[in-house]
């Protein structure tokens, strides 16, 4: 299936995605509906670190095959929203200029060979390695290299019993 995308490097599209989300007003807090137990959703979130349950951090994913080959899907509908006065007001002059130039470069791309960054094991690894506070509960898929790196880091910062017990399950 062809999708309208902005092609670029992974880093360039990560930067562009920041402007896209800023223009569209993300992150956004969700609304609980229906009965029953609901997720523990924080009232406020500064947009850094892992996305808390119930929050929407970004409009779209950056799809990549490598650091040099990336596609940021932006539909016509989203492009129109990004050029609305409401969206443009959220952006600086430089961000507007860069975003509007990027929108003009959109092409139809088959994303079947690309992987969305947020769902990749590598992205989970990066987030987990960067955030030791999650180690007591994370279920992220990690490579052996990442586990060794984290294990060394944990020992260096004297982790709690819960983290160490959880880590024991990895090895």
């Amino acid at each position: 299936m062809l999708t309208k995308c902005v092609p670029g490097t992974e880093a360039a599209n990560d930067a562009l995605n920041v402007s896209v989300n800023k223009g569209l007003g993300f992150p956004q807090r969700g609304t609980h509906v229906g009965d029953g137990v609901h997720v523990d959703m924080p009232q406020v979130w500064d947009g850094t670190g892992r996305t808390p349950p119930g929050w929407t951090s970004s409009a779209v994913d950056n799809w990549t095959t490598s650091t040099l080959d990336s596609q940021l899907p932006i539909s016509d509908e989203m492009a129109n929203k990004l050029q609305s006065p409401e969206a443009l007001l959220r952006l600086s002059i430089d961000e507007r200029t860069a975003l509007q130039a990027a929108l003009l470069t959109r092409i139809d791309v088959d994303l079947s060979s690309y992987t969305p960054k947020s769902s990749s094991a590598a992205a989970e690894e990066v987030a987990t390695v960067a955030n030791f506070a999650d180690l007591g509960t994370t279920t992220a898929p990690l490579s052996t290299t990442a586990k060794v790196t984290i294990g060394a880091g944990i020992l260096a910062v004297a982790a709690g019993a819960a983290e160490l017990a959880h880590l024991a399950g990895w090895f």
Partner: protein
Amino acid sequence: MSTALNMPWLDLPHWMRRAHIINPRACNFGSLLPPGPIAAPSVAAGPADPLTIVTSVSPFLFLSADLGVTIGTGVSAWADQSGNGHDASQGTAASQPALVTGDVDFGGRNSILADGSNDFLDVTWNPPAPGTQPVWFFCAFNQITWGAAKFLFVGNTSASSLALAQAGATPAMVQQNTAAVNSNTGAGLGSPVRGQVYFSGSVSDYTKLGAVLVTGASAGVVDPIIFRLFSRNGGTQSINAKLACLGAWVGEPSAGEKAALDAWITAYYGAGVGV
């Protein structure tokens, strides 16, 4: 003269009459009563009933589209009702599946619809290896379209651990924990069905979709590392399907409990899903 004086039983709670604490037919009020037996009140099925029906094994998680849903752009979170905190979530708007309220496929109950493009939900659950601890799944779902290697649920991003996936030829689904086995064609496209999938790391593994039971081959003993709904990689392997409920338990419930779950499916979602 008030009704309360003449027919005090009418003012009693229904459960008291049903329990024969006061039986109006035994109190010489026969001439005042309508003819025929007194019908017992029907007990409505509830969305979380499976958690009280299955008691012989503990639940890992239970997700119902009628309970604990959070809407961002689509479904940004789906809360586990089992008490284990194995909630599902999706932080990217474009990858959030849709909540279908009053879905006629499921008797007017809600369902969660994945678009077959890039929708998926991550569950905060690292399932056990079936070789060390069996896992039994129970769900109500509907395949909308079919494509090879598309996942209703899976325990890895890059391998087929603890998966129920479309594979083979339309409309077959397999269970997979490295090995794709027990291919089952019991879930027709566009037809809501109940599903049971058992991972024990032995030839006792089985898929039961609708009325079709396929067993005899082990799906494998690989240890999953995550649990994800609707996709493995978030992209090309996203399924186009609706999921009304999904439960997972530590091992297989008793035959009586499974029969009771089937009865619950029929009562709650309608006879079509209970076939």
